[in-house]
């Protein structure tokens, strides 16, 4: 490669230096200049079909598309002139003449490319008096995606995604002219591990995610940046949430880690965050029965008392790769310094596929922070073997077991088996964010304490991904306010008095006037006859 040469150009009166070979649209988007576009996507090839990214280049009488025009030295580019605006206005109108007025029922409304551009370039005086082209609606493309052909503007982003990124070639454009439709071949549904990216890149509501469909209007959602905890790739993501919980996960651009994409599995990571599947309160199993639920703080205090009576080697700690570096540091140093034990064990899930990689993003190590855990353990000189734990429990050498359980249960196939092992400890202190119904029918003379933990969207922290890249993230929202972070848990276990800011349930998840009796999805049955009324 020849050394990168910079060339000068002027965009909308601003002089810029750009790398040679850049297209106008790349230069504009990198320099925060607004330009209308649908088919161009930085992660995909150039299609040049939406004809919306029109610019005027000095010396050229015709407007040009910015996505396929490479900048040359001294080029003077303008996309704010009346000529360009008029071209974009008409380009947008061509997109809209056959677009159905579906905004009320369309999931994309609120984040729709057509709506956005219409606010800026709309004709506001529709001249289309003819009949619109009708196409298929609610087409099932595969297990994750629903297509609405009428809304589609045929930008071909999704087609290019399946042919260039996943290379699975499921999608294609069928027919021609204004009959063109996106579709799949017979018997070949859109079913790959990255299919939901097509929903993200769809600039309109043509492709919608079955999972998110009709759950929320997007303007009810807030978003916050975080790091996916689905696997060791550590994709940069955004979670979308409101007072009712987290509803979806979308990727953020980070060219060093995940580029523009993320996998479908990672998009499910919001599911174990929501209240329905969470452990909300501390609870204790003693004297053969489950006691009344108690405050998490009280439960930890009990655990602290139990631990301070035990001696060094009879205490063991089990950690998974699902927590943050800060938490590992706090936990490991607490047990090292305070309780003088080196029995810290690393619970490795799905050992067989741990090292696998699908070539794009998905890694077999389904923990976001295995590398971080190993680093902390190495720093403290801990090298405990899993079999020592099993032996220790069997021989009764380990009496007090503290487990920081996983958040993402589905990726722990050995959960039940290991819980059975843990439960043989005389006193099991199990920190978990997920409700563990598996322990509910437990019956033995051993003592178990369940203490709620916070999930990754509820705390600040750092994950170290497979590359060794440390990525910090901030708290997005709080879902179970009583739950503790690992750091708080460690401090409380050590007996320090900390002040945990309590947020009442009401302040967080219900607006002041939400009522307990408001309708839930389960009420569907109650009103069933009403919905069927029209088809009697």
């Amino acid at each position, binding site marked *: 490669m020849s050394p990168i040469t910079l060339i000068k150009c002027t965009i909308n009166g601003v002089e810029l230096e750009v790398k040679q070979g850049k297209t106008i649209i790349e230069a504009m988007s990198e320099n925060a200049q607004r330009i209308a576009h649908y088919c161009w996507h930085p992660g995909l090839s*150039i*299609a*040049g*079909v*939406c*004809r*919306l990214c*029109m610019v005027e280049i000095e010396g050229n009488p*015709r*407007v040009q598309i910015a996505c*396929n025009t490479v900048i040359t030295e001294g080029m003077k580019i303008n996309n704010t002139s009346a000529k360009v605006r*008029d*071209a974009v206005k*008409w*380009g947008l109108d*061509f*997109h809209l*003449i*056959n677009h159905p007025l579906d905004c009320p029922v369309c999931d994309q409304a609120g984040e729709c490319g057509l709506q956005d551009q219409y606010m800026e370039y709309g004709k506001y005086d529709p*001249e*289309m*008096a*003819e*009949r619109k*082209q009708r196409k298929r609606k609610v087409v099932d493309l595969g297990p994750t995606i629903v297509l609405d052909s009428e809304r589609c*503007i*045929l930008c071909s982003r999704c087609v290019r995604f399946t042919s260039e990124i996943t290379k699975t070639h499921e999608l*294609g*454009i069928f*027919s*021609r*002219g*204004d*009959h*063109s439709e996106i579709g799949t071949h017979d018997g070949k549904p859109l079913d790959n591990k990255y299919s939901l990216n097509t929903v993200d890149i769809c600039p309109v509501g043509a492709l919608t995610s079955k999972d998110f469909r009709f759950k929320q209007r997007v303007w009810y959602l807030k978003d916050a940046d975080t790091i996916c905890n689905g696997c060791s790739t550590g994709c940069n993501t955004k979670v979308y949430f409101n007072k009712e919980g987290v509803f979806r996960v979308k990727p953020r651009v980070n060219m060093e880690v995940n580029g523009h994409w993320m996998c479908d599995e990672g998009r499910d990571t919001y599911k174990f965050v929501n209240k329905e599947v969470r452990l909300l309160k501390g609870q204790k199993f003693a004297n053969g029965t489950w006691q009344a639920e108690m405050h998490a703080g009280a439960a930890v205090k009990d655990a602290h008392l139990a631990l301070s009576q035990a001696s060094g080697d009879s205490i063991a700690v089990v950690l998974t790769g699902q927590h943050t570096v800060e938490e590992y540091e706090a936990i490991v140093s607490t047990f090292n310094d305070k309780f003088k034990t080196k029995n810290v064990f690393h619970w490795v899930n799905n050992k067989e596929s741990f090292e696998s990689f699908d070539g794009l993003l998905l890694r077999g190590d389904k923990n976001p922070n295995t590398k971080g855990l190993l680093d902390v353990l190495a720093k403290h000189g801990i090298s405990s073997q899993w079999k020592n734990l099993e032996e220790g429990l069997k021989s009764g050498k380990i009496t007090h077991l503290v487990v920081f359980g996983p958040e993402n249960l589905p990726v722990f196939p050995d959960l039940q088996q290991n819980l059975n092992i843990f439960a043989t400890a005389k006193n099991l202190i199990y920190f978990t964010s997920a409700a563990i119904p598996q322990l509910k029918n437990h019956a033995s003379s051993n003592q178990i304490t369940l203490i709620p933990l916070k999930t990754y969207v509820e705390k600040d922290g750092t994950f170290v991904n497979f590359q060794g890249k440390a990525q910090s993230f901030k708290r997005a929202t709080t879902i179970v306010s009583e739950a503790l972070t690992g750091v708080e848990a460690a401090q409380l276990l050590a007996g320090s008095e900390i002040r945990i800011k309590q947020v009442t349930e009401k302040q967080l998840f219900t607006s002041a006037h939400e009522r307990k009796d408001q309708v839930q999805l389960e009420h569907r049955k109650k009103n069933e006859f009403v919905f069927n009324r029209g088809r009697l």
Partner: protein
Amino acid sequence: MATVNETKSNQQTSETKYLSEFYHLPEFKGIDGYKKNGGYVDLEKALKMQPQQIIDEVKASGLRGRGGAGFSTGMKWGFLPKNDEPRYLLCNADEGEPGTFKDRMMMEKAPHQLIEAMIISGYAINSKKSYIYVRGEYDESINTLTTAIQEAYKAGYLGKNILGSGFDHDMDVYRGAGAYICGEETGMISSLEGLKGQPKLKPPFPAVQGYLRKPTIVNNVETLAVVKYIIRDGAAAYKKYGTEKSTGTKLFSLSGNIIKPGNFEVPLGYPLKDMVYILGGGFKPGRKLKAVIPGGSSAPVLTAEEAEKATLDYECLAEMGTMLGSGAIIVIDDSACMVECLANLMHFYHHESCGQCTPCREGTGWLDKIVHSILSGKGRMQDIELLIKIADNMKGKTICALADAAALPVLSFVTKFRDEFEYFVREGKSKVKGVAYVADHTH
């Protein structure tokens, strides 16, 4: 019949058979008959020349593409990158332009003429492989070409080491699947690659990255055939035909409301009027000229007055705001309703738009719907202005020229025959025929 102006007073009133000299001979179709009439002599001559010499000769002849755009052939060949990659020569025989049927005649009457010229062109641009992309409906052309290619292989004009010159060349016929858009060079390349026949973004141009992302030259049947004659007679002799800037002869496909439609070869610069009245035999009794579409359906229409003055060369027609195109002259007499004519054209472009670029995909459909609603008597006065606005905004905004091809007739029809459109909207019936039509929205 008086000639149009003094400088062209020496115009003859019959065809100039240059390319089509032997087309009347049935034996010209076979290799023996072809060789008897001077066939494959020029190939031998060309193989003794340097490739660059041939390119220079073609450049000097001033030959311009006969397919529609009228781009200089020699210049196009000059765009090929210098490095020695596999290069491809594509013959564009996907003659889809409504009104054009000259290539078909050339392929059916003289397949060897095309094959010989293609081998010469292939030698000139150093291409070892060429394809003839024939329109799917042209059954006979495909059969004739396939037989002719087999004959040429047998006679040693194709294959390895042609005539002992060390030059290898292979040729294949590819049958199109019936899309107008595949007549566009990048659309044709997509189709040949096995993809959906959709034009590709330019740049890169095919001469740099074409078929299989390798340098590719795409030329019309007639353009390639002419190369043989340039080699035979030399550029200077070829330049004697035609005008200064539009050199040579050209086959014109004459159709429409005239007595004698057909293909006619005349030198460029020939008066359109003579073409219609002498070669075409004029009109049925009682009819008179109303309009002429001089270069295939996508060329803007000429009114009778303009047609009287026009000469058939690139410059004169460009001056009149239209184009020579593929040389398909569609003559319209005063029995035709221009609204109906435009509706017919719009139906065609709506049907043939590939659907890639939004302005064309949606615009052709919109135009079609509007013209048909006028035709069914439901038009509104503002629709006429709207037609112009839509066409204006489709023009030059798409990857290929199909949007322009749909927009230009609209602009010319509506501006030049506005009274007919207004009458139709006002009265709900045709000015010429006095009836309305039931618009067919099933397409």
